[in-house]
Every structure is written in structure tokens, then in C-alpha cells.
């Protein structure tokens, strides 16, 4: 019989993830670990996961990892890179973390063209702390700190992070993908592959934004979360590649 799917060796077998039903963190974890496994570099990888739901990642991903303070993963990764010029290094960050408290750290890692890859999980809300408004929260979307929903006059417009990062000359690979359908998941994996290839070839900073689900804090049933993402997030956060160097096209 032909094997059509095997669970990646990059994830702990004995530990189940603690993410809520319908959350796509698990898919993002698996994609990153699959790519590292396929490259045969799981044992040459160091990951950094900061505060937010992502801080649980080191419990599930089977690579050397450090938990970082809220927003600071890009700075921590920059330090790790200085000590280990040859390893695979990635940060795995949520949207409250990366766009709000860690806005400065991510911007300057991109500015410096740091040779690591950042995987940005954008689910348009604070997850771990319980549904507060993030800089990525959509217009009209309710949050515990925006009980009437986000509106422009009070809260401004949501940040489009991939577009911002793509303005940095040394952020050579920037792509936004989504985790709502099998086809999008396959596209997402290709972006992860390219992000690591950029790092391998020392071309510059690589950034992949995953539009992701948070049914618990959106107040949407888990099964409906992918549809909510497609209907609400993709129109404001268009999918696609913003920058890609010739070498990995």
C-alpha cells in the first residue's frame, strides 16, 4: 500500500497541541516543520516563539527553541544569528505581538536584512489574553476592548504588515498566504519553502504572513472559521507575493 501522508518528525508525537478547536496554528506549525524535515535540517534549527498563543510552540515543535518576551522575537533571533551563522533560524509570531508591541523589533530586523525567516500568524485579534483589539483587527470586528466594533474615527485602519515590510529593501521575500482551504495551505507551504531557501542562500530577510483563524475570540463556530477568514480577512489583506528574489523564483 502506498503511504500518502506521514506526520512530520518535526512535531512532538506524545504531546497534543493545546490550541482551541478550529485554530489554524497547528497547520502553520506542521507546514514549517514539514519543510525543515524535507530539507533534513530539523537538528540544525533554532526557533524563537514570543508571548501570545505562539509561546506554546516550543512545546510542540521538535527543534531547539527559546520563548521570547512579547514582541521581541526578531531581536532575540538577531542575537542567535550572530552566534550561529550556519543554522536555520525562524521566529513564529502572532499579530498582537508582531504588529503592536513588537513593531519596532520586526521593522529593524527587516531594515538590517537579518538572515532569518519570520512566520507571522495574523488572526486579526489577541488570542491568549482573550479577544482584545489588535492593530490588525478589521473595521466592524468586535473585540473585548472594542465592544462596539472597530471603527475608523476612534481606532484608525488595520495595519497591513506584509505591505509595510515589503518597503524595506533588505526584506527580499514577503508573501501573504491563508490557511482557510487545502489549496491555500499548499500555497502557504510553498511560501515557507521559499522563505527558508532565501535564508539558506543568505539573500536577506524573509517574511511570510499567514491569515489564520481564531474562532474562540471571533465568536464563530470552529467549522465556520475558514469561511469567516475568506469573507472578511482576504478582501482587506490580499493574498500574494510582494517581493521575491530571482534566485528562488
Amino acid at each position, binding site marked *: 500500500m502506498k503511504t500518502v501522508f506521514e506526520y512530520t518528525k518535526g512535531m512532538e508525537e506524545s504531546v497534543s497541541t493545546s490550541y482551541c478547536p478550529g485554530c489554524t496554528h497547528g497547520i502553520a506549525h506542521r507546514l514549517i516543520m514539514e519543510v525543515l524535515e524535507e530539507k533534513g535540517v530539523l537538528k540544525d534549527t533554532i526557533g524563537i516563539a514570543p508571548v501570545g498563543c505562539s509561546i506554546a510552540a516550543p512545546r510542540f515543535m521538535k*527543534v531547539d527553541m527559546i520563548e521570547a518576551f512579547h514582541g521581541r522575537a526578531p531581536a532575540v533571533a538577531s542575537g542567535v544569528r550572530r552566534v550561529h551563522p550556519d543554522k536555520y533560524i525562524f521566529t513564529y509570531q502572532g499579530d498582537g505581538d508582531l504588529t503592536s508591541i513588537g513593531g519596532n523589533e520586526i521593522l529593524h530586523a527587516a531594515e538590517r536584512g537579518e538572515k532569518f525567516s519570520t512566520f507571522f500568524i495574523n488572526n486579526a485579534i489577541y488570542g491568549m489574553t482573550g479577544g482584545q483589539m489588535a492593530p490588525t483587527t478589521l473595521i466592524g470586528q468586535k473585540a473585548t476592548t472594542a465592544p462596539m466594533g472597530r471603527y475608523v474615527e476612534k481606532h484608525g485602519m488595520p495595519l497591513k504588515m506584509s505591505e509595510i515590510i515589503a518597503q524595506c529593501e533588505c526584506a527580499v521575500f514577503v508573501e501573504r498566504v491563508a490557511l482557510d482551504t487545502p489549496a491555500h495551505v499548499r500555497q502557504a507551504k510553498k511560501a515557507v519553502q521559499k522563505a527558508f531557501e532565501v535564508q539558506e542562500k543568505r539573500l536577506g530577510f524573509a517574511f511570510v504572513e499567514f491569515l489564520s483563524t481564531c474562532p474562540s475570540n471571533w465568536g464563530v463556530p470552529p467549522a465556520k472559521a475558514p469561511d469567516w477568514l475568506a469573507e472578511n480577512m482576504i478582501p482587506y489583506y490580499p493574498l500574494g507575493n510582494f517581493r521575491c528574489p530571482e534566485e528562488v523564483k
Partner: protein
Amino acid sequence: MAEKILMKGNEAFCEAAMRGGARFYFGYPITPQSEIPEYMAAHMDEIGGCFVQAESELGAVNMGIGAAAAGGNVMLSSSSPGIALMQEGMSGLCVCHLPILLVSVSRGGPGIGDIRPSQADYRQATRGGGNGDYHLITFAPTTMQEAVDLIYEGVALADEYRNPVCILCDAMMGQMMEAVELPEHKEPVMGDAAIRAYKPWALTGQGDRAEKNRIHAMPWSPEELQESNLEQKVYYDKAEKNLVRYETRDLEDAEVVFVSYGTPARITTEAMEMLKAEGINTGMIRPISVWPYPYAAFDEIGPKTKVIISVELSLGQMMEDVKLGANGRWPVKLISRTGGVLFSSQDIVDETKEILKGVK
């Protein structure tokens, strides 16, 4: 014996750290310590090390966390408001059990403060400026040579105690020049093999290790966090046993005992000579380690002492420790300036005589 050379404090601090094996420096400009990042930018590459100008002190300390977690020997430095910004990272280094050498060149405060010398960051350095149950191992040198020797040793001590080691200097020490004898270069811990052998806990990629390494900034339960804190307390207990350092002077016949550290201790020494010329015998306790604090030194005070005076460039921050050391046995008074203002030896003489009028 190595040649004595005249160096500016901030530059001597860098040489001492590099010779002690530090190879990773992350910094941000702030007066009066900007010569440190400048010197590192000019010289770290020459010895195979690495300098990064961070986006902020927050960026710098978190880069330090990354490099320390990866097994590198890291030096950080800043001045008062910059050190305040780094406190998240100091607390983080402690929960992660990571070594780092921090040079704190204090200026006047609170707030943005003044760029001139101050000791108003005593509590920040000795009480833990960040959140949680932790300590920095803190030394307060008084001469350039002592600073150089402590920084050199501090790189290895941080590794041994798996904790940040802070060298607390007032701004005068960063800016002044004095002759120093620089120690020999130590072999740095660099590269996978050396890091794996010397720091088996470090993140190097799993390689041929049986298990992955995880460094926790957030242990998953109160019990795990308690266990982590108690693990660190073993080092704190060891530090209290082995790292208490101080110097005493003329305690036997002293009518007045001064307690002073850093540059003010030097000004106080001159005041002691001036008072002796006027027939007033004084002694001094000079803490070198300010955490752990040398409380035991107070047991060496002789029978003639009437009063203890804490001489410091802050509004009595160290006096709290002096009172703990005195433990009610003598009255404790204060001679101080704040905000970057300095006292002269004559000021100390005058104020001491005034204090003596009020004690029996």
C-alpha cells in the same frame, strides 16, 4: 607585568570585557557611555566578535538574550534611562538562567535625568529593576583598575552563576582617564563544539544531542516557575557565600565610620585624611559587591565608633543597606548629593563635623 596604559574608563571597560572572552555586544547610544558602542564598533570585528547597533535598549537586551541563549558570551551596557528600558530583559535573563555582563554607567535621575555622575540607580541594580524574584550580581568598582579586573572576571562569573553580572559605575568612571594594566586575552567560547561542551544547555540546534533544548521565558505552571526560581536561588545562595567583597580602612580607632562606594569612596578617602589632620579619627567600609551586600563588614567596627555615615550620590538608597548592616548598633546618617551634583572632600569634612555635633 603588562604595561600600564592611560585609558578612558568606557574604553577600558570594553577591553576588559573582550579580554575576558565577551564576543557579542549589542548597544544603543546614550551619554555618558556612548564611547562603549563606539569602541566595540571599531574593535569587535578584529577579534572575531560581533557588534550590532540595536534599534533601542529593548532591542539590545533582547539581542543579548538571543546570543546568550545560543551560547555566546555577551556584554551589554547603557546608562540610567537606557538601563531602565533593559529591565524587561534583565528579568528575562534571570528566568531563562542566562549569563550576561552588564555595565551600567549611571547618570542623574529620575526620568531622562542629567548626564553627570550619580549613584541613583543603586536600587535598580541591587533590588532588581524588573519584575519577579531575582537578583543581579552587582559589583561597584572604585578605580579604573578595579573596574577592569571585575569586568574581566565578570564574564566568567556570569557563566558560572547562570545569571547577569552587573558592574555599576558612576558616570565619572566612564569619562575619566587613569592608567590601567590590561589582563591577557582569554580563549573565548566560540563555535558549535566549544559551546556544546561548555554550555550543554545552549541552543545550537539539536545536532547529536538525544533531546532538543528549550529555554523557558514562561514556565507553563506556577509549580514549574517555582522550581525554576528555586533553581536560581541555589546560585544566589552560593553568591551570598562566595561573592561578598569589601574593603575596610582604619576601623579600630574610628570615631566615625564612613560607608561609601564607587568614585564617592575616593572623595571620602581624601576627606578622611583631612579630618585626621584635624584630630578626628575616621574609618571606612567600602562595599565592592553591592549585591550580595557585605553586611558582615559592620561586625569589624571597633568600640570607639559613635556614628556611621553613608556617603553616596543618591538620596540614601544605599543607606538602607547600611542600616541593615548596622542593625541598630550605631546611629546611621547620610551625606549625599542628587541629580548629578557632586560633593567635594571639603563638603564631606564640613558635614561630618556638623553630624558629630549631634551625636554623643
